[in-house]
Structure formats: C-alpha cells, structure tokens
C-alpha cells in the first residue's frame, strides 16, 4: 500500500479542527467542527466549500483524441462543443466499470480533460494507455499538479462571483465550463458538482486554490467534509464508485444506461451493455425507504417478506434533508419494481421498506 498523501489544503483542515480520515489514498477531512448535519444543510440552503483536490486530472490530446476518448468512454464526445462537460463511464469488455468520470471538451480542438475518482487514478491511467494502441494521442496524468475546490449550494454563484471575483462563472449553464487566467496561471471554472445543488468546481494550481479556499472561509462560507459530500450525493441519487458502480456493478444494473450511447459505432464494453439491456440483468440497484428511523448501512441484507435474502444495501443514511431512513440496495431484479415491499435486516431485526425512486431529493440545477 502506498503512503497516505495530503492535499494542498491539508494544513487548513487541521487548523479548522477537522476530523480527518484516509480516503482513496489521501488524508481527507470527514467533517469540521460544525458537524455533518450543519455542513449538509449549508449546501442545501446556502453554500459550502469542499476540498476535492484528491480527484484526478488526466489530459488527452492529439489528432486521434476524439476517436480515442469515444472508444474508451460510454457517452458520446462527438456531440460536445468546446466548453461542454459529459458524464459517463469507462468499461471493461464485460460491462464492468473501470471508473465513472467527467470529460471536459477542450477549447483547443482535440483536447480533453478527464476528471476521475481519486482511488482510480493509477488504474484509469493504465487502462487509457493500454487501450491507446493505434491512436495518435498523448495521455498525461497531471493529477499532482492540479488542486480543486467545489463550491456548492444555491448561493454558490454569488460566492464565486463576489468573493472570488470570477464573474465568468455567472453565464455558465450546468455541465459547461470556462477557462480564465491570472498572472499566467490557468483556472478552470465548471458548473458541476456532486451534491444535487447548483454549484461550481474550480481547478487551478495549489497557490490559487489555497488563496480561493482562504477567501471563501474568511467570507463565512461553510467548509464541508467528505461526510456530507456522501450524504448529499446519496440524497440526489448519484452513485459512488465502489458502492453503486464497480467491476461487478455495470451501468445497466445501476440504472445509468442513459450515459451509454449505444448509437455510437463502438466503445469498450458496448456489446456487453447491449446484451444486458436486451436480456436484463440478474441484479438491479434500487432505492428503498424504511418506515422506521433505523438506518440501513452498506452491507446489511435485504430480504423478501418471507425473510429470504435477495440483496444487499450499498449506501444508507437517515436522510438529513428528507428526515427519513433511505438506502440504495443491489437486489434480485425480480424484486426491483417500484412499490415492492421488502425487509432490511438491521442488527438482526427486520424492518419493512418499500422500493422507491433512487433520486430521493429533487435536484436543483441551473439549466
């Protein structure tokens, strides 16, 4: 196992009294002194700032960049204009997921930025290299050079424009980005996030990101840890790689096949996805709502009313926004229809639950 790394904001987290924990090879803040509930509510009601410098940045360029990215990525980058961002996955030939990621279409034609999960940076980079034979492309893992913060919540536009002076953020629609420059330093501002709220992700050098973080915190923006990052993305129905997507959990099983463009001529894993869509999969990811306040945690069994196990919880919380106990679970597809009554086993007691839509919280993006 490699050494635990620090992000460039590590000393800030310690100074703020954060509870730290290793995540994806980085020593990351789980929560600050306000606590997960207050941080979560700040993002839903006003604004919060996250250190997401652990995320990976891989640049792909060259004459064959478009064809290559379309070969390894499930979504269709030929539809992107410069400044557009697409969500999708990289797959194994059997439809298992290498990673889920964002692809930023460069303002210089033939340039793409792939933003990948921290835990998968090395794996993704190796996957890209090993699948690049025959393509005239340059693949550069620049993850260590870039720092990143996410500013999220209904007041995030005001914070980014007024506190950071990034007026260029204001005209952006969701899933687009722009680039600016300060003293020759590149700054990428994108209207994206992982919370279900309007928000921005800002990429730049460590120096710029540290100064942005300090200004936002001094302006009273709530620093937010990975604890509420998870409760927020979960309420908004978004998967976390490793829990709801993995080598064994395909986009079809996770209900994300709309991000696999089957009208593309080919991409790695396409045949498997076509087959899964046609024939169905044995398991499916569902949302479950409990009638009790007990919390269904990852790994807890999901059972039929006859107490026969037919699935397993992948993420579960007492929802902070909705004040009810909900979870994602991977279940036998025969029990995945909305409204199906099931049981979750918590500390050896069973609790009734019902299959509901995975998007528990109505997301509030800027169109």
């Amino acid at each position, binding site marked *: 196992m490699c050494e635990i790394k620090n992000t460039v904001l590590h000393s800030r987290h310690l100074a703020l009294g954060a509870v730290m924990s290793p995540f994806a090879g980085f020593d990351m803040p*789980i*929560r600050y002194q306000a*606590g*997960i509930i207050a941080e979560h509510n700040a993002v839903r009601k006003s604004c919060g700032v996250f250190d997401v410098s652990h995320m990976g940045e891989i640049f792909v360029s060259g004459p064959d960049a478009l064809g290559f990215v379309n070969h390894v990525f499930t979504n269709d980058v030929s539809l992107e204009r410069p400044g557009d961002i697409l969500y999708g996955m990289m797959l194994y030939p059997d439809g298992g997921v290498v990673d889920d990621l964002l692809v930023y279409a460069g303002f210089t034609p033939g340039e793409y930025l792939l933003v990948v999960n921290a835990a998968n940076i090395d794996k993704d980079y190796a996957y890209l290299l090993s699948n690049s034979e025959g393509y005239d492309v340059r693949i550069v893992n620049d993850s260590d050079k870039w720092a990143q913060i996410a500013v999220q919540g209904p007041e995030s536009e005001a914070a980014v424009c007024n506190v950071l002076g990034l007026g260029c953020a204001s005209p952006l629609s969701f899933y687009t980005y722009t680039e600016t420059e300060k003293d020759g330093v590149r700054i990428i501002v994108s209207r994206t996030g992982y919370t279900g709220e309007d928000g921005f992700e800002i990429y730049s050098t460590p120096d710029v990101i540290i100064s942005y973080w300090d200004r936002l915190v001094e302006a009273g923006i709530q620093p937010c840890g990975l604890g509420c990052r998870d409760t927020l993305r979960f309420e908004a129905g978004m998967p976390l790689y490793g829990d709801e997507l993995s080598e064994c959990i395909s986009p079809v099983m996770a209900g994300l096949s709309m991000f696999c463009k089957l009208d593309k001529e080919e991409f790695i894993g396409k045949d498997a996805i076509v087959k899964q869509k046609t024939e169905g999969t044995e398991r499916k990811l569902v949302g479950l709502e409990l009638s009790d306040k007990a*919390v269904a945690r990852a790994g807890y069994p999901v059972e039929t009313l006859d107490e026969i196990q037919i699935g397993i919880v992948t993420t579960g919380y007492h929802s902070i926004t909705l004040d009810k106990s909900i979870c994602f679970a991977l279940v036998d597809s025969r029990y995945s229809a909305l409204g199906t009554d099931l049981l979750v086993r918590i500390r050896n007691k069973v609790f009734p639950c019902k299959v509901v839509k995975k998007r528990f919280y109505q997301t509030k993006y800027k169109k």
Partner: protein
Amino acid sequence: MSKVLEGIRYSESHEWVKAEGNIAYIGVSDFAQSELGDITYVDVPGEGEIVTKGVEFGALESVKTAADLVSPVSGKIIEANGSVIDAPELINQDAYSAWIVKVEMSDPSEIDTLLTPEEYGNIAK
C-alpha cells in the same frame, strides 16, 4: 479535548454510569459523542429488558456510523429516556446529562469494577 466528568464511572467501551443506590443511569461519554458526530437515532429496548455487564443491548446511530451500546452493569431496564430517544442530539449537546437508560442493578458491586474518571481519561483521547 473531550470532557471526563468526576463522580461517575466509565466502561472501556465509553459508557458512563451514575449509581444512586441500586439504580444506575447509563449514558455515553463526551469522547464517544465527539467520535460519533451528530447522533440521529437511539436504538434501545424498553422497560423490563434484562441487560448483562459487557453485553451489547442497543446502538447509537450517527450520520456516518452505528455504534453498539454495551451495558456496563447487569440488571433490568426500568426506563429508557424518552427525551433522548426523541431528540438524540441531546447526547451531542451534553453527554453527561443525557442518560439513555435507567437500570435496576442486580449486583451493585459491579460498579467498583468500572474505570474511575482518572483511568478513563487516560484511554479517552
């Protein structure tokens, strides 16, 4: 730095016990609540349930995790604290006034086997 209250006893699993005759009030320490973070659910059996020293009898759920409650003494639950069950955040606000269950002890001498505040202060950091 978490607070250790004088005049009560502690278990290694971070429960506190305040004895009044053969009645024991049981809660969790300030250290435990600060490690757990925001507590959202208290899962404890009701009146009449038998508890045994060193054996799990319920759980606390925080946003991120669930932690077993282990009984520091043996006896019978005579009351679960309804205020704390209704508002688990009371444990975060003041762990030492938010007792969780009241137990009629079958062997009050078990109290003497528990950690003193000084001993507990050495492990709760």
